């Protein structure tokens, strides 16, 4: 046997995912779509905020659609479907994040009609979705007032990759002793300058600002 030799590789481990994501991003851009990837811990309020978002955008005449990832069950797809928007569920059966190829498969199976805004609700997890690009134009990290203001500091990778943070469940702020300044500081520490929108899907507070923010992203 010959001597071992060192070969340079210098290749991204997620090269394949990055390539698929890049292709999709280009297709989305050409189709004039805004694609939003919602990430947060389980229970932060992704589905409920998304439901309200779909209802409001539809009311404004936008064509919207959603893909939702969960480890098991199609419960969220059924909740979201009540908005009237087309929704598809991805069950990952154990996988803790969505990958670009999974999203592409869902899109291929979809009747091809124009969509202005596609939402992807990622699997609830503050770690694993970090490095998986889904071709989105906007990554939104949710932080509920009930989960601790320091979550961004504990999971900096995910919050750092987000384009915008949405603080959710503000109707519960008082009951949870939510320290708003601490939450804003934590977000700024992991992503200086990141815009933050404060919402309650229950009371409707802040939803107009959120919708306006989304509308401004339309090409």
């Amino acid at each position, binding site marked *: 046997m010959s*001597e071992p030799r060192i*070969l*340079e590789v210098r290749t991204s481990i997620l090269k*394949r995912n990055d390539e698929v994501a890049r292709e999709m991003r280009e297709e989305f851009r050409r189709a004039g779509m805004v694609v939003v990837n919602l990430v947060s811990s389980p229970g932060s309020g992704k589905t409920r905020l998304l439901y309200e978002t779909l209802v409001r955008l539809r009311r404004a005449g936008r064509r919207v659609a959603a893909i939702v990832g969960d480890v098991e069950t199609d419960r969220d797809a059924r909740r979201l479907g009540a908005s009237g928007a087309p929704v598809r569920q991805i069950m990952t059966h154990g996988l803790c994040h969505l990958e670009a190829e999974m999203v592409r498969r869902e899109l291929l199976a979809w009747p091809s009609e124009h969509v202005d805004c596609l939402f992807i609700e990622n699997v609830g997890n503050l770690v694993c979705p970090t*490095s998986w690009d889904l071709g989105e134009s906007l990554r939104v990290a949710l932080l509920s007032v009930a989960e601790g203001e320091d979550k961004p500091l504990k*999971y*900096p990778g995910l919050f750092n990759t987000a384009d915008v943070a949405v603080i959710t469940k503000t109707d519960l702020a008082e009951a949870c002793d939510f320290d708003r300044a601490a939450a804003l500081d934590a977000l700024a520490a*992991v*992503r200086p300058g990141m815009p933050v929108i404060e919402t309650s899907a229950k009371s409707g507070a802040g939803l107009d600002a959120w919708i306006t923010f989304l509308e401004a992203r339309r090409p």
Partner: protein
Amino acid sequence: MHELSIAMRVVDLAAARCRDAGGDIVTAVTVRVGRLAAVHGGALAAAFEMAREGTPLAEATLRVVDVPVRVWCPQCRAEADLTDVVPLACPACGRPTGDLRAGHELEVESIEVVGPRGDTVGAGA
């Protein structure tokens, strides 16, 4: 536990590179993992042991190079490595900065290959 997905890709990439270079087996893989990549070194090592089974990497060692977060400070006009991951601020002047120059890496840097044609191929491939 997304480390298994990652380990499987490391094995695939390394095995393909080894094959292209005419090698028989891979004896070591070096990966670079940024502190913001949300990958746990220990979990990756455990996942790698599973993923390598039955592949040309079956005997391979995994080396993980930990890549610190590096920021660009527009005030100091300089790059700097951070000791901690957060806060993202210039260690010299304290100015918050989101301008990252390193920290999200997730890459296979190199492999060590053994094989009959190992001496003649690889270097320029």
